[in-house]
């Protein structure tokens, strides 16, 4: 059968307005259903004719999961369908969680931020080009990782957390949310569950076919930002080949509370180095009680890259990660 990589194959479309209906439809269609948020990851899969769901459940009209409101604990609640532009330009987010506003504002392009959603951005699939070419790799249910061979082109692939699959998580907002101790609220027909952001993302060792805990029938409805980090020092940087559209070669997000010149508490998260955003727990413990200086940053960087395992073309990521971690401490504002 000839391969064709153009044109969306037909599907049935549902546009529920309530979460319960969405969840019910998702359950009804199981893995033959597809949840459509902003669609910017989705349409690639459809147009490449690699994913062919029989039913698409468009969340655009589910108003309950869009918008930004105050949380009970003084934090913020962001509906999963809130556009990235709304997140980046919300006065509340800019004021209290500038780290997230910055990360959301660096996603792709204005048009994509206008349409793409926060939920979609964090739940997006990896951009490994072997996988996205429709090749039968482990992540696609096959029996090989094409990106980890001795001849593979894997400049963008991971240096940590690999387990058969070496793809990276490409999200810009994911590391920011982990660094802010966000919580993800997931609905399904069996009720609502909440995951700390760090547990929301999973590696291929746990499930090689998914990037998050979301299974068919699970709907990410809300991202809760606790009041733990407002007004903390923060740093976000995204390294990419082109200044617009591009996915990150690497991104770093940090939240830091500094008192009397010393780091009291800190979160440092690096993305595009592993199949999930990597929170650097060892680095965090090592630098508590130290000044956020060049030296501390240097030390943090060295610790951060311990255990990194490079592929044929991505050795530079070790240096880049070390330097970005350093900057995330030294240059935090």
């Amino acid at each position: 059968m000839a391969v064709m990589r153009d044109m969306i194959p037909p599907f049935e479309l549902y546009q529920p307005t309530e979460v319960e209906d969405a969840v019910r439809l998702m359950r009804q269609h199981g893995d033959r259903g597809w949840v459509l948020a902003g669609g910017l990851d989705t349409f690639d899969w459809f147009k490449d004719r690699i994913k062919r769901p029989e039913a698409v459940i468009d969340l655009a009209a589910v108003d309950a999961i869009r918008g930004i409101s105050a949380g009970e604990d003084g934090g913020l609640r962001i509906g999963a369908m809130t556009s990235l532009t709304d997140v980046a330009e919300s006065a509340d987010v800019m004021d209290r969680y500038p780290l997230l506003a910055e990360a959301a504002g660096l996603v792709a392009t204005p048009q994509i931020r206008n349409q793409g959603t926060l939920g979609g951005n964090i739940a997006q699939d990896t951009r490994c080009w072997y996988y996205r070419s429709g090749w039968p790799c482990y992540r696609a249910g096959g029996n090989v990782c094409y990106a980890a061979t001795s001849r593979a082109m894997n400049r963008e692939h991971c240096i940590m957390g690999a387990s058969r699959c070496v793809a990276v998580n490409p999200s810009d907002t994911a590391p920011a949310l982990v660094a802010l101790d966000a919580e993800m609220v997931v609905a399904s027909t069996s009720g609502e569950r909440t995951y700390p952001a760090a547990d929301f993302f999973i590696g291929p060792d746990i499930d090689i076919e998914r990037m998050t805990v979301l299974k068919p029938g699970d709907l990410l409805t809300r991202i809760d930002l606790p009041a733990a980090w407002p007004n903390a020092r923060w740093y976000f940087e995204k390294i990419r080949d082109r200044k617009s559209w591009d996915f990150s070669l690497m991104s770093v997000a940090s939240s830091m509370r500094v008192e009397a010149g010393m780091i009291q508490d800190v979160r440092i998260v690096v993305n595009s180095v592993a199949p999930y955003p990597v929170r650097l727990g060892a680095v965090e413990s090592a630098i508590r009680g130290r000044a956020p200086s060049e030296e501390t940053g240097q030390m943090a960087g060295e610790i951060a890259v311990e255990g990194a395992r490079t592929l044929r073309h991505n050795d530079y990521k070790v240096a880049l990660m070390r330097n970005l971690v350093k900057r995330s401490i030294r240059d935090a504002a």
Partner: protein
Amino acid sequence: MEFLRRALNPWGENVPIGVSWDLIWAAVIIGAVFVVAHALLVPKKVGAGEIDESEAKGLPDRIQRHKPGARGFHWTMSVTMFVLLITAFFPVIGIQFPWVTIHWIAGVLLILTVLYHIYHVFAKQDIRNMWIGRRDMKEGALGLQAAMRRPVHRPRAAKYPVDQKMFHHAATILTLGAVVTGVLMMYRVDNFLLPQNTYMFSDATWGWVYVIHGVCGIGLIFLVIAHVYFAIRPEKRWMTWSMINGWITRERYLENHDPERWAVTEADGAGEMEGTAAGGGTGQPALSDKA
């Protein structure tokens, strides 16, 4: 139901990539049906055999059936097998955990135990213990008829009854199949033992490697179900115990084993008696069991 999982390779060619996971359920269901059917249809006869006291003289109370090395092998293999099956199939059915490293390390352990076993068999045991000869076949046929409640006299077995031998051979084939393909698959995952060599074979060949591995794994699901079932069947528990403590009682020996086919010498105290040769020459196992 599909038997194979197939996919288009990068050149658009349809190649197998593995065995269909539906077969896991098939194996489980067939195993369950077999167990239930067997439990319902085959009569339990614990200690039903009559003992010829004349045969008993000179025999110790306890007769060693499995030496510690053999028992060690069996239980190590059991553990690795369970680990392998759980790590292989639980993630497929939706119970997720980081399984790959555990799986291949368990696989390496299994290979080591198998190697030990092979060495042991050739160096210290008599491979003919596992040989299925004419008398075994007859024993099997009569056993089958007995199981079907026909009024036949089931003869006593050699050291290993024919069903045990058959199980052993099936397990051998499936385990070796899984081991050989598993070793090849180690070339496709990141490990410190073998260098990655993804393109050692064509993708169709690789596909068959995965298919064989899957078939063996799924076959082992069935065998394990059957094995565990028999191990806990009341009339076979004495055998299960012998795999734990190494010996069987003289009564069990005489009930179930034909001293002609498994001769026990007087020197065989519990766990220490040496079997002496009394047969041989006609395809019969030499009754020397150092295990």
